[in-house]
């Protein structure tokens, strides 16, 4: 029974996918949207069931569906594991997934390929569930690659625009770079422990005698996989480009699901990372740097979704910072709160874009507060949350990350704090430019300004509420989340709330306020509006152009490979072909030359004949 339910939980979105692919066109848009949504909701409800069951029993639920791949030293089955971590993830994946589906019914209603959109969304959720519930690394890898595929499909959903297709392709390929790392890490672990099952690896590790050097390489490779999926340095550039997709996709990918996969994986493999402190240091440093770099790029972006994208990268960096310090519970906490407010922000921005009929440039917005009050207020709440204002959800989780950082490494703490201040600044810059002061768009847009329909606003409201209260799951003192995850992550000492901690909280809060005030001063008091692209100069331009990282990659990797390809194609291939032909030419040449010997001079023939006979006789004699 439980098995079947678990399978229903897993396959329900897949059924939705199949339905929408095969019959979506035949039924009305609302039906196809409804089916898509309901299947995810079903998964969500089942997740709740399993969650409550687990809460009572405390026993994780694991079973194997069928044998899959077999290699010499171990077998890999398609196994499902429902434990604290995977159920937690399931809850917010399917929960936020349901909300986003709901939202999409309205948002995508005018699109001719709406059924496909829902099919892809369902497939996405299906793969995400696979990723989360797998009981071994290979099943996770199915989901891992699967979400990559779905992000490709969804980012390139408006496939008539080749720029969008490029962005989709970029996302897929950059993810695959990470995937290669994941694969290699998996190979090493497989070779070391003869299994990829989490529990078995853990047992094997507990027994000791693992080659730590090799394990370190494995951990590093896995982390490379995580940088691809969770958009960390140096593989983050696909995420901002992924904004090409419809906004619900951005919400789904950036907030709830795909990008958290890397964090999920690292948390899942915590017992491996715990043994490899060097890799943990690398993770912490990469996380902090990502947070800083992405936040600084976010400062000057004008596309509303790009700002949010960089903010996501930056927040993910903070989570990795926590992971690097071994504070998995803190990272998970931030993942969850971040899912709430970031989904809300994205959906809110979608609502804005929807209201402005596709306008994404904040220079052409402004003053939407009155026209779209619900959108404004929900987004405002989420912005406060992400900026880390007491008592919103983001405050608690971010504060814990900073606290952990402060404990372990002061430099990284400073970096993270700067990133947080920047976050507060650019988020409020976004709010001010979008919702405050007067409207800067065209008259026609102004005429059509309206609040979005309820299917859009309801998810926003729910998410905003969660963004307010989300912090409750791991409040200092109760620490419910930490205790809940103890079976997986081991015991973490709860912070005693001393003066130290209060001081850090105060510093964080002040930092956030500084950021907000800075934004306020610039965009409200001075009424500053970002200049048009051509006027941006100097260092600002460098930031606005994202430090030219994309150009750098193009120059360093794409161009050489394409050049190499051209070289191979136009030069080396024909040259190799010529080498082969040269054998033919050799034969021809020999023939032409040999023809000359055949000159009909019998005297010469006789000479050669006699000498040949002599030679043969001599050879036979000697060989005897």
């Amino acid at each position, binding site marked *: 029974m439980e098995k079947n339910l678990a399978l229903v939980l897993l396959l329900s979105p897949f059924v939705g996918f199949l339905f929408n692919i095969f019959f979506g066109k035949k039924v009305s848009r609302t039906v196809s949207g409804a089916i898509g949504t309901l299947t995810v909701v079903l998964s969500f409800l089942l997740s709740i069931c399993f969650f409550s069951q687990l809460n009572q029993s405390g026993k994780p639920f694991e079973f194997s569906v069928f044998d899959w791949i077999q290699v010499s030293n171990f077998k890999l089955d398609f196994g499902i594991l429902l434990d604290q971590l995977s159920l937690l993830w399931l809850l917010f994946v399917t929960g936020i997934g349901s909300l986003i589906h709901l939202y999409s019914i309205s948002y995508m209603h005018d699109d001719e390929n709406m059924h496909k959109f829902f099919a892809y969304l369902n497939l996405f959720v299906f793969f995400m569930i696979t990723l989360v519930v797998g009981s071994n690394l290979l099943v996770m890898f199915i989901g891992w690659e699967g979400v990559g595929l779905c992000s490709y499909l969804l980012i390139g959903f408006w496939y008539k625009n080749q720029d969008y297709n490029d962005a989709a392709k970029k996302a897929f390929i950059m993810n695959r770079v990470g995937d290669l790392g994941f694969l290699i890490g998996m190979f090493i672990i497989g070779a070391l422990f003869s299994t990829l099952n989490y529990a078995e690896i853990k047992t094997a590790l507990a027994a000791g005698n693992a080659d730590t050097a090799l394990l370190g390489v494995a951990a590093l490779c896995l982390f490379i996989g995580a940088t691809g999926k969770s958009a960390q340095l140096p593989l983050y550039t696909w995420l901002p480009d992924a904004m090409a997709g419809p906004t619900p996709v951005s919400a789904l990918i950036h907030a709830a699901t795909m990008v958290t996969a890397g964090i999920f994986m690292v948390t899942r493999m915590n017992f491996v990372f715990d043994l490899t402190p060097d890799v943990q240091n690398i993770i912490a440093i990469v996380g902090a740097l990502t947070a800083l770099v992405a936040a600084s790029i976010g400062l000057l972006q004008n596309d509303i979704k790009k700002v949010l994208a960089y903010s996501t990268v930056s927040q993910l960096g903070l989570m990795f910072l926590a992971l690097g310090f071994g504070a998995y519970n803190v990272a998970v906490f931030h993942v969850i709160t971040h899912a709430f407010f970031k989904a809300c922000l994205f959906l809110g921005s979608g609502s804005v874009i929807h209201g402005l009929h596709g306008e994404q440039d904040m220079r052409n917005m402004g003053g939407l507060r009155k026209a779209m009050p619900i959108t404004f207020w929900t987004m405002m709440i989420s912005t406060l949350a992400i900026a880390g204002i007491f008592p919103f959800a983001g405050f608690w989780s971010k504060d814990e990350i900073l606290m952990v950082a402060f404990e372990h490494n002061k430099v990284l703490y400073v970096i993270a704090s700067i990133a947080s201040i920047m976050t507060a600044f650019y988020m409020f810059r976004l709010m001010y430019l979008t919702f405050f002061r007067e409207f800067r768009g065209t008259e026609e847009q102004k005429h059509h300004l309206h609040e979005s329909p309820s299917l859009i606003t309801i998810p926003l409201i729910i998410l905003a509420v969660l963004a307010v209260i989300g912090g409750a799951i791991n409040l200092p003192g109760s620490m419910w989340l930490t205790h809940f995850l103890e079976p997986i992550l081991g015991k973490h000492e709860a912070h005693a709330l001393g003066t130290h901690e209060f001081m850090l909280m105060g510093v964080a809060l002040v930092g956030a306020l500084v950021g907000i005030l800075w934004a306020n001063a610039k965009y409200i008091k001075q009424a500053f509006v970002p200049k048009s692209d051509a006027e941006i100069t100097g260092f600002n331009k460098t930031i606005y152009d994202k430090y030219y990282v994309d150009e750098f990659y193009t120059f360093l990797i794409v161009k050489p490979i394409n050049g190499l390809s051209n070289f191979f194609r136009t030069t080396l291939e024909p040259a190799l072909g010529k080498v082969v032909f040269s054998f033919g030419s050799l034969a021809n040449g020999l023939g032409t030359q040999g023809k000359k010997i055949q000159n009909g001079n019998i005297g010469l023939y006789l*000479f050669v004949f006699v*000498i040949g006979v002599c030679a043969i006789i001599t050879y036979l*004699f000697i060989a005897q």
Partner: protein
Amino acid sequence: MSPILITFYCLAAITLATAFLTIYSKNPIHSAIYLVLCFFSIAGHYLLFNAQFLAIVHIIVYSGAIMILFLFTIMLMNLNKENEVHKPRITRLGAIVVFVVTSIVLTTIFINSKPIAGEYPTTGEDFQSIKVLGKILLNEYMVPFEFASILLLVAMIGVVLLSKKEKPGK
């Protein structure tokens, strides 16, 4: 030095000298004459071995038939002139080199191919009288013998066909 050895040396000298002269004479007629002498001396060698049948056949076939053919041909072609142009010097030099090399190689090999016993066995059996050979030829070698005759017949027909003048326009 036994008389037989002396005879052998004389015959050998004649053989080699006439053979050489055959090649060396400029006039083909002279060559042919020297060749006849050469063949006779070889027949002498056969006699020395007491191979009577072969000696006789040799004289009949070579000195009789073949040489006559040669002479006829030479005369038919009106070749009894000494106007043959020599081959280039390099070719002649090459010919001499090859001559020397071939001689050395063949001699070495024959001498080395089998140690030659000091004594030669004598079975006392008659193995080469005409009578014996005749029996062997017509018993054991019956079939090849017949084939030889067919060969000669074919050769004859071939020669007739070859030397027939083709009628123009046919």
